[in-house]
Structure formats: structure tokens, C-alpha cells
């Protein structure tokens, strides 16, 4: 996985931490962490305040750090969500009402960056980083078999079946891509020489991956049929229940969030 890019979350590393499970947060019920994920997504959707977005991000970052998860990797993995947010906000942040900071005049139209436009940029960046950080925290402190059992119980068929089958399959496919890229690089393949040729080569790698993945899926399906698979895979793992302390924490967090969003007027 590391062969592809250090900016793409490494599935192997994520799984290593989730299976290691030595931190206190690994012992919290997966249902509690899932509820908090939903809570954070709702919070970032409703909240308009930069201060709350920053506070949320700092709390989530602290959780991540206290779980013993790799901070340096996290900052490398921020590249993709950061680019994604920028690609949206770079269009939206211009001509917001407010005190002008910077203006760009071209024939027939002008672009003005105001304080509110800058606030919008910063708010969206911190919201996305908070969501991404908590998602990684959730994945890296929850064993996959708990995740798959939760998905099986929550989502309707065939969505749950897709999730249940695809995780290991993604591992296998990424390993395939990784080994093909290693083979390319061992014979002098590299992105700096002739971008056109390299693009062609990598697109061939991915096309071959698609074909091989199809073959593999066929073989896996055969193996499942050989054990009587009838179209429904049952996730049989027992998920740890939510403790009283966790219920209390969720209640306090929800109450505080509602109070801060609706009843407290913040400057930003």
C-alpha cells in the first residue's frame, strides 16, 4: 500500500492498529464510536462557527494522539481531504459579503476575497479535517469484524453484503497493484520520465488489475459456493455493548453541542 503514495491511507497500517487494540479507546463499544461519528457528521453539517470547528478538531486530534496512533502519518493523509476541500472552496470563497481583503480585477468581472470568504475556507478545512481524523480514529481503534457485524445489523441487503465481501477483496486487489508497481519500478519505471508514457503504463496496470480482480472474484465465488453459499453471508461476531458511562458521555456531548450551536453566540 505504501508503494502507491504516502498520502493515501495505508489499509495495512489501519488494520494493524485496529487489530492491535491496546489503547483504552479500543475497549470502548464500537456502537458508541459509531454514534459519535454520526454525531460529528451532523455537528459539522449544522455548525457554522469557526471556533467550534477548531475546538472539535482539537478534541478529535487529542483522541487520536492519546490512542497511540501515528500523528505524522495522519498529517500526510490530510493531503487528499485538504485538496478536496480546496477544490470546492476555491470556487465558493470569492465575492462573499464582508470586509474586502484582496481583490482581483479582470475584464468583465472581479473577484474579491473578504473576511467571511476566508472564514468559510478555514471553517470548511477544520470541519473536514475533524471528520477525517475521527473516521481514521474510529477505523484504527475498532476491529474489522466488529465493523462488519455492525454493518450487517444496520444496513439492508445487499449493501451489507457488499461491505462484508469487499474489505478483504480490497486488500487483495491493492496487494496486486502494489506488486505490479514494484515490478515496474524495479525495471526503471518512474513518474519523472515522460509523463505520457508513465500514464499509459499505469493505466495498463490498473486495467490488468480490473481483469484479474474479476477472475479472482469468480474464484472466490466458486469457493463460497463450494461451501453452500446461498447469497446471504451472516456476520456472526458478538459486538460489545454500550456501558452506562458511555451512554452518559454521549448524552453530555450531545447536550453540550446543542447548547453551543443554538444558544451561544460566538464571534466567528
Amino acid at each position: 500500500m505504501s508503494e502507491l503514495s504516502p498520502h493515501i491511507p495505508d489499509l495495512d497500517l489501519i488494520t494493524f492498529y485496529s487489530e492491535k487494540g491496546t489503547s483504552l479507546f479500543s475497549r470502548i463499544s464500537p456502537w458508541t464510536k459509531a454514534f459519535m461519528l454520526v454525531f460529528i457528521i451532523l455537528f459539522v453539517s449544522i455548525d457554522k462557527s469557526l471556533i467550534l470547528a477548531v475546538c472539535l478538531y482539537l478534541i478529535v486530534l487529542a483522541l487520536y494522539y492519546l490512542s497511540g496512533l501515528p500523528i505524522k502519518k495522519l498529517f500526510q493523509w490530510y493531503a487528499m481531504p485538504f485538496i478536496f476541500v480546496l477544490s470546492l472552496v476555491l470556487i465558493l470563497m470569492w465575492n462573499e459579503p464582508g470586509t474586502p481583503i484582496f481583490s482581483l480585477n479582470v475584464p468583465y468581472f472581479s473577484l474579491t476575497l473578504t473576511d467571511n470568504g476566508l472564514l468559510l475556507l478555514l471553517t470548511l478545512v477544520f470541519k473536514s479535517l475533524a471528520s477525517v481524523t475521527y473516521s481514521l480514529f474510529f477505523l484504527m481503534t475498532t476491529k474489522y469484524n466488529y465493523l462488519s457485524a455492525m454493518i450487517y445489523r444496520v444496513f439492508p441487503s445487499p449493501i451489507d453484503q457488499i461491505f462484508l465481501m469487499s474489505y478483504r477483496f480490497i486488500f487483495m486487489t491493492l496487494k496486486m497493484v502494489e506488486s505490479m508497481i514494484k515490478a515496474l519500478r524495479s525495471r526503471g519505471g518512474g513518474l519523472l520520465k515522460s509523463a505520457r508514457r508513465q500514464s499509459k503504463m499505469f493505466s495498463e496496470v490498473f486495467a490488468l488489475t480490473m481483469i484479474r480482480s474479476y477472475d479472482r472474484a469468480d474464484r472466490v465465488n466458486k469457493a463460497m459456493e463450494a461451501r453452500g453459499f446461498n447469497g446471504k453471508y451472516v456476520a456472526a461476531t458478538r459486538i460489545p455493548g454500550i456501558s452506562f458511562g458511555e451512554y452518559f458521555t454521549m448524552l453530555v456531548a450531545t447536550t453540550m453541542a446543542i447548547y453551543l450551536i443554538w444558544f451561544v453566540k460566538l464571534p466567528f
Partner: protein
Amino acid sequence: MKTLQQIHNEQVCNSCTHEGKELIHVDCASHIYPDGSLGIHEMCFRVLEKEIVALCGPNGSGKSTLLEHLNGLLRPSSGNVTVMGKKLDLSHIDIWRDVGIVFQKSDDQLFAPTVLDDVMFGPINMGLSIEQARTEAMGALKTVGAEKLSDKMPNYLSGGQKRLVCIAGVLVMKPRAIAMDEPTSDLDPLHAEMVENIILNLKNEHGLSIVIATHDMDMAARISDRVCIVKDGSIIAEGKPSSIFYDKELLETSGLRQPKVVQIYEGITKNLGIGLEKHPMNGDELVKTILSDFKVWCIPKHL
């Protein structure tokens, strides 16, 4: 003049004398793949109770295709396959309960998040409750010596461990026969020996019949009760390992080599100018044969 295949087919299909109860009978079955390539051609084959049958042949000879017929994954284009007295047709859709199959690539078989989930997959499909399936799965893992792997992810197992889990995943369904495709092909010697011992244990302690597709002649010589030579989609010879593996001409025609034990024994007897009287099939038998039959001159004192 009859071909080897025709002679063999007559022996299998017309023979009424079986040393044991017949579990599986493949009656002149052929299979043609959608792209027109021939998988098996008029293949006659049987599996008796409590025996280990080795299917030996080069790559592409049809061994894997035959194995997939035994489990019902493939249906013959012509001919019949009978399992436990029932003909393999559209009505016999639960053949997988009687004949399990362990695939050559463990990664094709292991798909669940944990080892225990994967081994429980078969019993749940058979209608057992989750608790019953869990108990049975732990029992199967214990049989193959892999109970400590129950909560591990298959991604992080070694090749040998994956193979043990695959065998457990099939064993848990309590089949009468298990087909294994190249069970030791990608294993180190230690794990290969472990798998061989498990195969012997399954036959001796659990009364299962095992069909092994392999081109590892040494393993086939050590553990099999009967050997079938597969070539170009057909079985051209069948017999005890001691008769098949000492037929050098037959093996060379089929693109195979004699097991190392046989090569060593034949080399020794050839150099000493002695005829082949016994047919040792493994290292222990070879040593005993050499010590009992050959006169050894000038043995150093320390030996």
C-alpha cells in the same frame, strides 16, 4: 490397439469388485469449457471409503477440473458423476455437504474478516445456529491445530496457517470426502509435513476419503493408497504407488518424474547390479530395505 485410457476406463467402469464401499464414481465424464478447451475427456474415476487417492499429472492435465466435478462446481458435458449413490444433476444441489474442496490458492477461499468467521461459514450455510456453528468451528480448528488463530485476520496469516484454516473450513462441514488441489504446493517443508500429517489423520482417525491433485510425487508416494496418472484430461493408469512409481516409462510418458526415494533406490540397485525386489515408498522403508537386503562391507567402527 487400445490406448492406455481405454484400458483404464474398462477396468474402472466394468469392474464389479471393489475393496471398499464406493463413495464417488465418475463414469466416462467429459467437460468442455466455454472457450472450447477440453477439461476432462471420457474420464473414469472412483473414490472408495477411507482411502487417499493421488491424482498425479502435469499442469493442465485436468486434475483441478476433475476435483471441481466432485464437489458439483462443474457439471460434465457428457457422462455422469455419482456421489454417495446420487447422480450429480440439477436436483442434487447439496453435494457440497458430502464432498468438500480445498482450493490451490488459499486466498481464493478465505474471505471472512476473521478465521473463526470463515470456518463458521459452512455450518451456517448448512442451517446450524450461530452458537452451534461457533462450537463446531472451534472443534475443526482444534483438529488441524489452528485454534489459536481463531480471532486472527486471514490477511496476516502465513501460507501454512492459511492452508490449515482452509482445511478446517471444509472439515467443519463433516463431509465424507475431501478434495484437495495441490495442498502442499506453496508451503515450506515444515508446514508441508504438517498438512501431510493432517491428511493422514483425517483418513485414519476421522474415516474420510481424501482426493489429492498434485505433482509432488514424493508426497503422493508417502501417503497415498492409490495413484491415478492424469494426462490430457484422462486417467491413463491407476494402481498402488509401489507399482505406478516404479514404472519409469509410464511416468516419463506422462511428463512426470519418479519420487526421489524411488530414484535413489533404483540408482543404488543399478550401481550394485542388483534387481529391484522391493519397492520402498518413503525414507524409512528405503533405509530398512538397504540395511536388510544389501551386504555392507567395511563399515567404519563409529557407525
